[in-house]
């Protein structure tokens, strides 16, 4: 049977782990509030720009933008948004699984994949699986700056312009609520056409100031950038929520473990006392 010193040592070590996890839980809880606020602040813009883009899709435009054009796909690019730090449960793994599944599905149709990665975890993962990585942006922090993402988005859009890729997907966790995060793989390019409303006449077009081409180029680029940015801040909110849950579970488990060990410790101690007593009694009887 284990001796009391060993058990005591084990209890102490688990207690210190528990302190760390519970501190991390509290940090994540306070960060979660902030990241959720950032996420909600960004929403009105992305909703409005989505509205405008769907209006443009309905308009009978003089200049059909390449982002709307369906090419026969040969190569696709996945923009994968992950966290920079671990200890957030299955958040990243679940997303990577979906990305790999989608990539395999495309592979069967003869479409090759390449990856543009946001976050240290994605960079590490796709390095170890050996995917073709075209761009990486990492260490963006809790309040990512849109400027930091523009470079990565530009790489992908330029590849599309040059015909190196025909499709682009945005893969990120969607924030459902604090308990649930939903990994999503969404098609970015070609822009999915809105379901056409039969009653609305599509014979109108905008007046463009200045040129339609220039303007649409700017607006659609901004749209893609805003989608990527929104995905990153939403993924941040997911990360903090997942981290909080994971750390809460770890703290609870450590508590259970400590309870069990304390029971064992008392048993061991009691056994030692009983043994000592019986030895004394036995010794006295012998004398």
């Amino acid at each position, binding site marked *: 049977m284990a001796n009391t010193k060993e058990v005591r040592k084990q209890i102490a070590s688990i207690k210190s782990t528990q302190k760390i996890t519970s501190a991390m839980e509290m940090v994540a809880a306070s960060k979660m509030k902030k990241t959720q606020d950032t996420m909600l602040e960004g929403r009105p*813009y992305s909703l*409005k*720009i989505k*509205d*405008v883009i769907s*209006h*443009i899709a309905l*308009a009978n435009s003089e200049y059909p933008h390449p982002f709307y054009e369906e090419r026969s796909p040969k190569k696709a690019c996945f923009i994968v948004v992950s966290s920079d730090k671990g200890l957030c449960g299955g958040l990243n793994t679940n997303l990577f699984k979906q990305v790999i599944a989608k990539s395999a599905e495309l592979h069967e149709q003869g479409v090759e994949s390449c990856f543009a990665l946001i976050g240290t975890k994605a960079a590490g993962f796709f390095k170890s699986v050996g995917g073709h990585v075209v761009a990486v942006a990492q260490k963006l922090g809790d309040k990512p700056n849109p400027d930091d993402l523009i470079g990565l988005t530009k790489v992908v859009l330029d590849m599309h312009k040059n015909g190196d890729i025909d499709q682009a997907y945005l893969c990120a966790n969607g924030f459902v609520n604090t308990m649930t995060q939903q990994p999503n793989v969404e098609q970015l390019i070609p822009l999915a056409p809105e379901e056409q409303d039969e009653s609305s006449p599509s014979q*109108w*077009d*905008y*007046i*463009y*100031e*200045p040129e339609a081409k220039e*303007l*649409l180029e*700017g*607006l659609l680029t*901004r749209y893609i950038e805003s989608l990527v940015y929104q995905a990153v801040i939403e993924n941040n909110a997911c990360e903090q929520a997942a981290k909080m849950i994971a750390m809460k579970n770890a703290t609870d488990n450590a508590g259970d473990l400590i309870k069990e060990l304390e029971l064992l410790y008392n048993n061991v101690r009691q056994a030692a006392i009983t043994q000592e007593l019986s030895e004394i009694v036995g010794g006295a009887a012998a004398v």
Partner: protein
Amino acid sequence: MVYATGTLGELGIAPGHTPLLTGLAAGPVRVQNGSEEEAFFCSGGFLEVQPDLVTVLSDTAERAESLDESEALKAKEVAEQELANKDASLDYAKASAQLAEAVARLKTIQKLRKNQ
């Protein structure tokens, strides 16, 4: 009515305007609803007009009440200094963009004051 500064000049948009899509330059955006008027400063972006709807997609925006003239002047001076100071490490495009924004902000403040 919505008044805004497009890349090609000032715009005044009345209800029922024909669909329009334009870039926005840094400058004031005013929204008139009856006798009420709200004013903002936008640092550039896009403007979409539908007959019954105007959408302003601005990179950054501020309410006119929270615009501070002394701050804007200070920002302008800093930007000018940076431009004058021909250092190798200077990001010229960024500094001139900052200057343009500061100037537009000052203009917005002066214009809004005149209107009052």
